């Protein structure tokens, strides 16, 4: 039931996204722009560009992800459907879950397209691609879940565009710190023991978010 309703809502969001061609394209463009801007800001003559890869990659995904989160509920706001959807069969969980999946899909595809671009721009190669990808996946799952929650909570808040990153970034800090460290370590070909703790931390936070976010959402949104 939960899955069926989530799928219904997700399919609706995908249709809307496909027709308005709005968010995803801009997310991608914006992320490319971020990479270029970071290159201007961080690259120095005579320094190895490859060292900047982990930071540039993660911060770019964080920023472009925010663009997506800010627009997650745009279709609902435009048509005034949020309340209608909130009060349907399974209540609020499918709504949150479908938005998290949508965000994950967008940011995941962005990440897959961005990764080669960053590697080319910064003249780097992935030392241990599977590990870097695992870290990125864990980070994006957490970002999607938290983004859906914060996006849903702030739908009707004034100055949302400003406030959303203000709460989202500190709450994402554990994932960002761990993700960047993991990528650095993976690039340096560090021994697996050094990585385990970071992976565990990310997985733990993701699990916490998946467990707690639906409950928090329901507590806030219920009349």
């Amino acid at each position, binding site marked *: 039931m939960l899955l*069926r309703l989530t799928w219904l809502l997700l399919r609706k969001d995908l249709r*809307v996204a496909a027709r308005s061609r709005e968010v995803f394209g801009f997310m991608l463009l914006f992320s490319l722009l971020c990479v270029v801007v970071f290159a201007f800001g961080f690259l120095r003559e005579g320094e190895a560009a490859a060292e900047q890869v982990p930071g540039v990659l993660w911060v770019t995904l964080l920023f472009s992800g925010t663009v997506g989160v800010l627009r997650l509920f745009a279709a609902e706001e435009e048509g005034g459907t949020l309340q209608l959807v909130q009060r349907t069969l399974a209540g609020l969980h499918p709504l949150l879950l479908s938005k998290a999946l949508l965000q994950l899909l967008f940011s995941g595809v962005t990440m897959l397209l961005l990764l080669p671009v960053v590697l080319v721009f910064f003249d780097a190669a992935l030392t241990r691609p599977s590990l870097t990808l695992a870290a990125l996946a864990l980070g994006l799952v957490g970002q999607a879940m938290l983004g859906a929650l914060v996006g849903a909570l702030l739908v009707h808040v004034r100055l949302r565009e400003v406030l959303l990153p203000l709460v989202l970034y500190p709450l994402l800090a554990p994932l960002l710190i761990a993700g960047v460290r993991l990528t650095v370590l993976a690039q340096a070909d560090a021994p697996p023991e050094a990585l385990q703790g970071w992976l565990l931390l990310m997985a733990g936070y993701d699990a916490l978010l998946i467990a707690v976010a639906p409950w928090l959402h329901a507590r806030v949104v219920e009349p």
Partner: protein
Amino acid sequence: MTRLAAAGVGWAIDGRFVLVDVDLALAPASITVLTGENGAGKSSLLDVLAGVRKPARGVVTLDGVALGDIDAAHLARRIARLDHAPGLYLELSALENVQLFRALLHADALLSDVTAWLTEVGLAARDHNRPVRGFSRGMLQRTGLARVLASGADVWLLDEPSTGLDRAGVELLTRVLQTARDRGATILLATHDPALLPLADRRLHLHLGHVVPPVEA
């Protein structure tokens, strides 16, 4: 017999009571027209009656059970709303919109019936499959009405349902409402449209935060 009732309902926004001691009882198979000045709290009252907002005081009951004790999903299948906002996804077609809400409310939804509802509200077949973003206000209102029909709810709370409708549209709305009433629906219309007043089995006026019988002009 009473289907939807409010007893001593009070509702406040921004630290000020808008509705005070509202008592109201709506019978099955009846159309009630609610009038009131702008800002009298008609939309707020509809929100409270639909269970979207929790009243600060008093209680709203559906078939004698307080709304707070009714499962939200069940409530959504019993009470349908039509507001100023059309309650539609603008990028989806009329068909897809109605199908979506039908499927969200009824797990065993047979999606083939949806076309019948769209025809019932007078949407031409060529308009069923284009995004409602291109619709006029009146066509949006019709699609919204189809969504209400498709919900299968037996309590309808409609806020200015004739907004943007042409004369044929108002006649159609009248027919749809009468048919629904004859099938047993409880309908509350908040409206200023004189064309809809003859529909009323009962008229109420929202004045100074509570419901009174209207002053006959």
